[in-house]
């Protein structure tokens, strides 16, 4: 029992953090709701929230489908080279977000990148991977899917292995097609894992920062500035810690809402 007390230390510290959030430490003068009023009139704030949501909406499903597809191939008895492929898919996990950003920036460089070079060779118009905001966001989604698959894949593979083979075999004997087996047996049994992957993916996407920093710095301009970068910029580059805290609070509320909604959703499915 004694050693538990030791860990109330960090616990209380965490609690303390959350309290300082509410009072907005860093700005000793109490300004009331000024920060929030300023915030809700700030276009850049809406733009970064919008971009973050857009990014999440595309990145999470992409991530989920790719990782699940790869995991299915990797646990299927019908494929070869599985061990080698698994190691290969896992390698991006070792690469830090910064380096991931650098790798994709190198490939999608507008004037020097491989992709535009191949496009030119094929006699197609060069794409503006850096100066077109939507294309730049697409590259970010691609890069994050590439780097995020490894970990999600581990989760799916472990879960897929836990599905009793007898279920699938019995269904096969009863004449269920591969698609039916997947949608009626595998997918429902994967629900707890899917729930976790989507929740973690959403939270991860909402706080994407490092990779984008190295990939295009939220560019072109500030068009793709995601919300954490906005917090960083206001709080640390412009030293408006009070204001940045207000942004943090809004992000926190959004995340809590997302988590609660997803948990509700999960529970409701449990009942049916």
């Amino acid at each position, binding site marked *: *029992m*004694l*050693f*538990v007390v030791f860990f109330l230390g960090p*616990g209380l*510290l*965490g609690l*303390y*953090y959350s309290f*300082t959030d509410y009072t907005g*430490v*860093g700005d000793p003068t109490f300004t009331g709701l000024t920060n929030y009023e300023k915030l809700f009139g700030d276009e850049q704030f809406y733009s970064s929230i919008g971009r973050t949501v857009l990014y999440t909406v595309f990145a999470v499903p992409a991530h989920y489908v790719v990782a699940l597809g790869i995991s299915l*191939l990797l646990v299927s008895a*019908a*494929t*070869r*080279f599985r061990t080698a*492929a698994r*190691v*290969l*898919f*896992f*390698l*991006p*996990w*070792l*690469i*830090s977000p*910064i*380096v991931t*950003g*650098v*790798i994709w*920036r*190198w*490939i999608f460089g507008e004037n*020097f990148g491989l992709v535009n*070079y191949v496009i030119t060779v094929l006699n197609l118009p060069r794409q503006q991977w850096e100066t077109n905001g939507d294309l730049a966001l697409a590259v970010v989604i691609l890069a994050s899917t*590439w780097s995020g698959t490894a970990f999600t894949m*581990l*989760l799916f593979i*472990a*879960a897929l292995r*836990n599905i009793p083979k007898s279920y699938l075999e019995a269904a096969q004997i009863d004449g269920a097609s591969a698609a039916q087996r997947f949608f009626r047996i595998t997918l429902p049994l994967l629900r707890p894992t899917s729930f*976790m992957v989507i929740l973690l993916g959403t*939270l991860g996407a909402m*706080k994407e*920062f*490092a990779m984008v*920093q*190295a990939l295009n710095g939220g560019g072109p301009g500030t068009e793709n500035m995601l919300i*954490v970068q906005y*917090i960083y910029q206001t709080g*640390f580059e412009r030293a408006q810690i009070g204001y*940045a805290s207000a942004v*943090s609070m809004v*992000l*926190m509320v959004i*995340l809590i809402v997302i*988590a609660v909604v997803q948990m509700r959703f999960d529970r409701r499915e449990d009942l049916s």
Partner: protein
Amino acid sequence: MTTTPRPAFRGVNPWLTLLLVVIAALFAFPMLWFLLSSFKPGSELFSLPLTLFPENWTTSGYVTAWTRFDFWRYFANTGIVALITTTLTVLVSAMTGYAFAKYKAWWLQVFFVCILVTTMLPTEVIMPSTFAVIRDLGLYNTLAGIIVPSILTATGVFMFRQYFRTVPDELLEAARIDGVGEIRAFFEIMLPIARPIAIVLGIFSFQWRWNDYIWPLIVLNDPNKYTLQIALRSIVGADNIDWSVLLSASVISLIPMVILFIVFQRQIMSADMNSGLKD
């Protein structure tokens, strides 16, 4: 999709295998391109037509990167942070998880809910206030400033909690009857039992910290204390990116993680992370 069964590859579907190989190639290609580019001389990097393999293999980018940047220092800084944090994370998570699994008290329940909440709220979200706390504690611009906030991870606590729950209570009771103190029982009986979990958490924690970016960025401002990621960022952030140096420096920064992966490959690939988060 049925194929004519051949005795050697019975049950193997060539189309699925092809699909797997194609996807794997797509995944590998960015890494391969990046690695090969790093061996090209600066003049060849942008000269058309682009070639997959360097015409003149060179390590000049590596030499420049190595001499221009104090990699030993960055390695040392990052290594110190990652190792200390990982050790503390494993220890703290084991103790906390153990307490949640084996002791019953109302305030433990409350505490557990608090930890649950922190999974929902990543540190990025409260960074302005956490930064204020770090600064007030005098940890600004110190490596400790990166270490302390990263120690407690909910994932680690969950993993240990689930694991210790499967350890029979009788074991603990037997130890108590034998007059073994609670703390000794933990260190000498429980911790060794939980070794597999400790290893998995240790590996993951090390990777998280090695690749951490946002905390070091905020807390450090003295270039001598920079971690690898921040140093790399300073190359990418420049107005004119020196690609030759950047490519090589990035590859160098990956080496320790690759070594870690080779050493612990078996543990990593078989890690059942679900066990930590499934109730």
